[in-house]
């Protein structure tokens, strides 16, 4: 069970009850607003950050992320978006107060660090900019039961990573705690497939998202390639004869190679063009950018295997590279 103790705490100033405090925490008394420090032995500070975005804003942020991209019009339309899920994910928070040896005497600075305390498959928590997120909204004492009624609250399962020494500074104090940060998960079903977007619950920044690519976006390319090959195959035979004659005018051996090689190159380009237009694509994006990725594409397609075979054959003919080539 999540660390939750049935301890009734009250404010030493006004006597007001402090509901939901189940660990060490820095809280303001809900009655008299006094700043209080609650110390529960052996349980570090547990805090949570309230999301700045509500459900509708999370969906709107996802729509805004895909705006301007070639996604189907029905994607993220009303009715296809599922109820967004709010997640609370724990982060280890450690603040080290360091003493810097300045000329004018020691100066103290706080060096905070945040690291995910849980691993959730498919959710890249390492992409969450935890520092702004942890300070974006006032913190609350972590009340697991209250949060679980409206969100999925994950328990910490990973140990806090060890921190590197800070050069030129002496750590005089270290405070460790856990802070639960909000993440929105927006899911949309489109053409029987599921697409997700994970958003920072405080800023709306997309941590990771996928969306289908409008398949008609590839139609101009498909028409272009088809017509190129229609021209190659449909042009008069006499043109081919003239081309071969031209090759042999240049050089007898080169002409022979080009006569055999031209149809090979044409077929190879045809295969690559087919590879390009036959797959569906989808967009995958995060705060760094958006990429296009093929769907249901094998690691290497047939034209790529043939190409790699040619390169392997060329390497075999040339022999193993010597040391100088390897270094270069």
């Amino acid at each position, binding site marked *: *069970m999540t660390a939750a103790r049935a301890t009734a705490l009250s404010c030493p100033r006004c006597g007001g009850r402090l509901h939901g405090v189940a660990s060490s925490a820095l809280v303001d008394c809900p009655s008299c607003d006094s700043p209080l420090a609650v110390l529960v032995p052996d349980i570090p500070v547990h805090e949570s950050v309230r999301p700045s975005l509500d459900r509708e804003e999370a969906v709107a942020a996802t729509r805004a992320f895909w705006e301007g991209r070639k996604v189907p019009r029905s994607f993220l339309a009303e009715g296809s978006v599922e109820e967004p899920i709010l997640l609370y994910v724990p982060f280890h928070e450690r603040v080290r107060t360091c003493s810097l040896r300045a000329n004018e005497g020691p100066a103290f600075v706080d060096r905070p660090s945040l690291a995910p305390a849980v691993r959730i498959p498919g959710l890249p928590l390492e992409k969450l900019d935890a520092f702004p997120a942890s300070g974006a909204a006032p913190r609350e004492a972590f009340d697991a039961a209250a949060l679980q009624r409206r969100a999925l609250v994950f328990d910490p399962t990973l140990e806090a990573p060890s921190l590197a020494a800070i050069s030129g500074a002496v750590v005089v104090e270290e405070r460790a705690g856990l802070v639960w940060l909000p993440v929105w998960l927006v899911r949309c079903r489109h053409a029987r497939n599921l697409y997700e977007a994970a958003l920072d619950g405080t800023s709306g920044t997309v941590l990771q998202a996928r969306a289908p690519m409008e398949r008609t976006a590839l139609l101009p390319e498909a028409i272009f390639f088809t017509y190129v090959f229609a021209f190659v195959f*449909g042009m008069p035979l006499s043109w081919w004869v003239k081309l071969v004659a031209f090759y042999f005018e240049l050089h007898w051996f080169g002409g022979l190679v080009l006569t055999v090689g031209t149809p090979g190159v044409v077929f190879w380009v045809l295969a690559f063009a087919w590879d390009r237009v036959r797959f569906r694509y989808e967009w995958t994006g995060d705060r760094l950018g958006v990429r296009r990725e093929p*769907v249901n594409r094998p690691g290497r397609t047939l034209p790529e295997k043939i190409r790699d075979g040619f390169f392997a054959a060329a390497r075999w003919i040339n022999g193993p590279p010597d040391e100088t080539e390897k270094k270069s």
Partner: protein
Amino acid sequence: MTGESLLCPRCGIRFDADEEGAFATCPACASRLHLGDEEELAHQKLVPVLDEAAVLGRLARWLRDREVLADPKEVVTRLLWFPFWLLPGDALVPAAPLLASNLGAFHLPAGDRVAFRRGAGGSAEVVPASVPPAGIEADEETRREAKLLHVPFREVRFRLWGHDYTVWFDAATGQALDFDLPPTSERRLDVTYALLLLALFAAGVYGVRTLFGGTGAPWWAGAVVLAGAGVVFWAVARLVMRLSESR
């Protein structure tokens, strides 16, 4: 089931406790036995009946239903127990965070229920309950009546087109809980698209040959075919893709 059986101290018979709570009744001598550790015995679990071979059959059917035609690679299965709060009316609420995409369609699996004791799962992972009754979004009376039920799942991990996927099949009835759906193959659309491209290619070859006087028809007929075929291909392909999306 040896780890779950109890020994009656009065008559010496071994039996499985299938009652809820801290007590059990010996089926031979009808002795009322106190079993200790009340909190754990208040839990129940469903008895798994699906073995690994059956679950692989379920996976094949699940993929086929989703129109995923490729064969999954590197298939690995394991048994795990996941806790749910069983509310009045047989509603299930996960007692730990669960990100399954079709949780709303998951119903209480039918099957035998027995008392749950720690260690009864053997080597299978028992996911600990982290949501207390107070964390259930329901009224106080419903929370009071909530019972913890450990549902056995056969987790299947597999690789398809370079991506990893996970599906859980409840080991009592075989309902699927999926976490990330493999994309559909859409073979029907692909075949239609290929046929349309072939038709466009044929029209293109005819148009080019006509342009250069290879068919006997006037050159402008070739130009018309080339222009018209592209437009028709565009319109039909768009229509087919829209139909496929709306299906």
